[in-house]
């Protein structure tokens, strides 16, 4: 029978004493590697005052000269801007500008005089600037068909070109879409005194566009045939890759105020030169309150006249140096020992968790 009154005996061994189990467990353990055990050597930087102050100071010291250089570059640019859309409306039609622009019988010729304020070295860029023209509107941006522009065999592909897809009798328009349809058509002729300043209209578009986006064997067809004229008409005998104005226009701008390259003048202009511009005020910006401006500008390594970068850098650089000094001052006045345990909340109120 069973024995009774067994006194307490200790159960054998400790939990991990089992040699068989230990061997089994050892083989199941994953191989030790510093990566999987997260023991890779690491550097652990902390924000000491020294480090932070020096970073701010360094940033300030770098930014200020860059700002100065940028500002100087921007100041070097000479720019002549002339708004002509209001001025070129004949006096008797100032209250019916829309009627004026849409009436084909009224002559759109207009003469403007520009004075050169400073010496301008060639090449001088001629831009036309449009204000309040939303080339970045969603329906405008997608109203084009790139396949059609690239390949003459795909002339029928006019998807997404609404509303300028086909003519009334269903023939496809090449190039289709609103962007091409609204091509800018003001022209400018420059004269300095008696001398005619030739505007070089070659190479005003991107080379990559000319070579890959607009094909040499695609010709405009059925273009601007409809009732509503949006802009310029295109010569059907010139292939698209040579229609540089079109190519420049079809590089849609991202902002409502933009400039597009019209051409270059390879003549130096002297201070106080008077330039006479004979322009054709064809383009309709009156129906949506847009503005048209003619711009003559030189360019530096930074681009056109843009003070923003210079000022921004100067301001930020100055702020950084100021912050560096402020932090130094703060550190000198109210020093805080790094890693002072007295500030641990459970030390401030010990056991008061």
């Amino acid at each position: 029978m069973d024995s009774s009154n067994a006194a307490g005996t200790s159960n054998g061994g400790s939990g991990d004493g089992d040699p068989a189990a230990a061997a089994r467990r050892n083989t199941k353990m994953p191989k030790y590697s510093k990566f999987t055990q997260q023991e890779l050597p690491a550097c652990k930087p902390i924000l000491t005052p020294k480090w932070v102050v020096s970073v701010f100071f360094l940033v300030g010291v770098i930014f200020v000269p860059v700002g100065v250089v940028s500002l100087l570059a921007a100041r070097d640019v000479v720019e002549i801007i002339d708004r002509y859309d209001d001025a070129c409306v004949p006096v008797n039609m100032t209250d019916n500008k829309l009627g004026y622009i849409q009436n084909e019988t009224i002559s759109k010729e207009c003469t403007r005089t520009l004075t050169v304020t400073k010496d301008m070295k060639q090449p001088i860029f001629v831009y036309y600037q449009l204000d309040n023209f939303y080339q970045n509107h969603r329906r405008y941006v997608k109203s084009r068909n790139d396949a059609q522009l690239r390949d003459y065999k795909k002339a029928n592909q006019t998807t997404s070109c609404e509303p300028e897809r086909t003519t009334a009798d269903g023939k496809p328009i090449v190039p289709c879409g609103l962007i091409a349809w609204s091509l800018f058509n003001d022209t400018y002729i420059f004269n300095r005194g008696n001398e005619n300043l030739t505007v070089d209209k070659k190479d005003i578009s991107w080379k990559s566009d000319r070579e890959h986006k607009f094909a040499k064997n695609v010709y405009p067809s059925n273009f601007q045939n409809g009732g509503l004229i949006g802009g310029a008409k295109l010569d059907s005998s010139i292939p698209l890759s040579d229609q540089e104005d079109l190519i420049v226009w079809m590089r849609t701008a991202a902002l409502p105020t933009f400039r597009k390259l019209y051409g270059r003048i390879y003549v130096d202009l002297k201070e106080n030169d008077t330039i006479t511009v004979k322009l054709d005020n064809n383009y309709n910006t009156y129906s949506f309150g847009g503005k048209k401006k003619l711009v003559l500008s030189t360019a530096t390594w930074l681009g056109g006249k843009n003070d923003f970068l210079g000022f921004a850098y100067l301001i930020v650089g100055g702020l950084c140096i100021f912050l560096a000094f402020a932090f130094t001052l703060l550190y000198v006045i109210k020093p805080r020992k790094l890693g002072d345990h007295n500030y641990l909340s459970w030390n401030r109120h010990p056991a008061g968790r």
Partner: protein
Amino acid sequence: MALCNTVIPIKSPSGQISYKAQSQDEDALVNAASNLHMVLVSKNGNNAEIHFNRRVVQYEILDVLEFTSDRKRMSVLISDSESGKIFLLSKGADEAILPLAYSGQQIKTFIDAVDKYAQLGLRTLCLAWRELGLQEYLEWSRLFKEANSALIDREWKVAEVCQKLEHTLDILGISAIEDRLQAGVPETIEILRQSGINFWMLTGDKQSTAIQIALLCNLISSEPKGQLLYINGKTEDEVARSLERVLLTMRITSSEPKELAFVVDGWALEIILTRYKEAFTELAVLSKTAICCRVTPSQKAQLVKLLKSCDYRTLAIGDGGNDVRMIQQAHIGVGISGREGLQAARAADYSIGKFRFLKRLILVHGRYSYNRTAFLSQYSFYKSLLICFIQILFSFVSGIAGTSLFNSVSLMAYNVFYTSIPVLTTVLDKDLSERTVTQNPEILLYCQAGRLLNPSTFAGWFGRSLYHAIVVFLITIHVYANEKSEMEELSMVALSGSIWLQAFVVTLEMNSFTFVQFLGIWGNFAAFYIINFGISSIPSAGMYTIMFRLCRQPSYWITMLLISGVGMGPVLALKYFRYTYSPSAINILQKAERSRGPMYTLVNLESQLRLDNNATDSISSMPVKKSSVYEPLLSDSPMASRRSVASSSFDIFQPAQSRVPASYPRNIKAS
């Protein structure tokens, strides 16, 4: 002792017999019996063979009345193959067996023995037997078979049938088994309690055993530091009154430096959970430590549920099959895979090998995981919001027409290629080294309150993304104005600006840099350019040559630099300011760790504490009422004495080190 069990002996080829048992108690008993020369040699089918001092005795096992937590005992019906007599052998908890003794037997000696053993912290079992007549057995056997094959209410029917048989037993004696604590248990509990986690012990042992073991592992402290409040009673009213009294004591003495804990028995708990739940819930919230004895598995799960309903984050840890329900009920279930098999480990969310690993699980891995998850989730929102805000701002200058500034390829690649890898390297980010964390376990409290991921931190990231979007957008449209204003170029400039900013943001937010992180952040940055160069070489792409054109312009690089400077400047300044003048606990420890080394801190802390010991209103200023702060830990395993919090909570390491040789290792075992 050798027969009343469900142990299967396994004969190894060398002739050694090893036992396969469901519980370690049974294993211990059978081994003890074999040490006393009553060896259970084999059990095939219904026959058990016992070798007693070279005499071989065969027994036939007729029925096994299995252990249930309701009856708290198990019985075996055997028949001696020589004499043909039928015996009923019972084994179980003393309060389940002793009342069934036949009238007239002196059970006082047994009760005394049980108490004595329980005081020593041993697990007691009572053994009894009875002889049956053949007729009685046959009748009963029929009933038993019926009950076993019943389709409805089988458990109840079986229990009823067993009751019929188990009465007028002849008590044989008491056995006591020493259940040793695992190594490192007291220290683990100490550290975890320091870090703000409440511990409750739920066990199936007797009250005295449980209290003894709790004292041993730092769970409660003996008088005068700690006080134990008992909830007892034989009738419902008694229990209710006892509960009220304890509750009252808890309420009024919560401001004293004494540590209070309450003890409640299984059947009292049953009454309380059914009738007096609200009072008990209040008690649960007030007390930081509790011991519940003689609890059944379902009661364990009920207790966890109760605490969950008080908005506590619960973790249940256990190692036996009876802990499975509790483990599954808790928010986090931890199973210790051990000698009782893998049931608990399989049912758990996390499975560890020893109890002391819990410390690393919670303090080290849990903390890191929380930090990294907080960063990852907020950063993901940040980077998506950045792009969204830029698009929204762009719509203001595009006539609110819905034009997307970024082309579709860039948008798709953004989330996957340009910004995902740097964040993934945050997996290796360690804000504090493990040594610092184990020396300052209170740091866990800092995470518990959700300080790294809450509406205000999220608002911070949101604000940052808004600010960065404004910076990128305004700078881009002012630099790339007039003749430079071309859709594709502008969009690429804005995207590059965002990517630059993000590389810096991730760099600033990382706490530790391994070479993997460097590679991730700056390699990804380079990959951005490489991918875009690739796309810019496809003639049919809208982006053809854009990246090349941009990289040739000096104004592009100057713009990038400006965006980074304006975007990161205020962020860095703010971070530095907060780091130095209103540092969070983590920051302080970080600085201490890197500038001085953690060892010096102990001296500082102790002196600090002795100075401030006058602040005895310490406990009341504890943020006790923030129920989201505390994490009560429900453990099935016994723990030991605790320290009061008011006194030196930081000198644990010195005395603890000296205590290790004194406290002998004990195995954790579920009851």
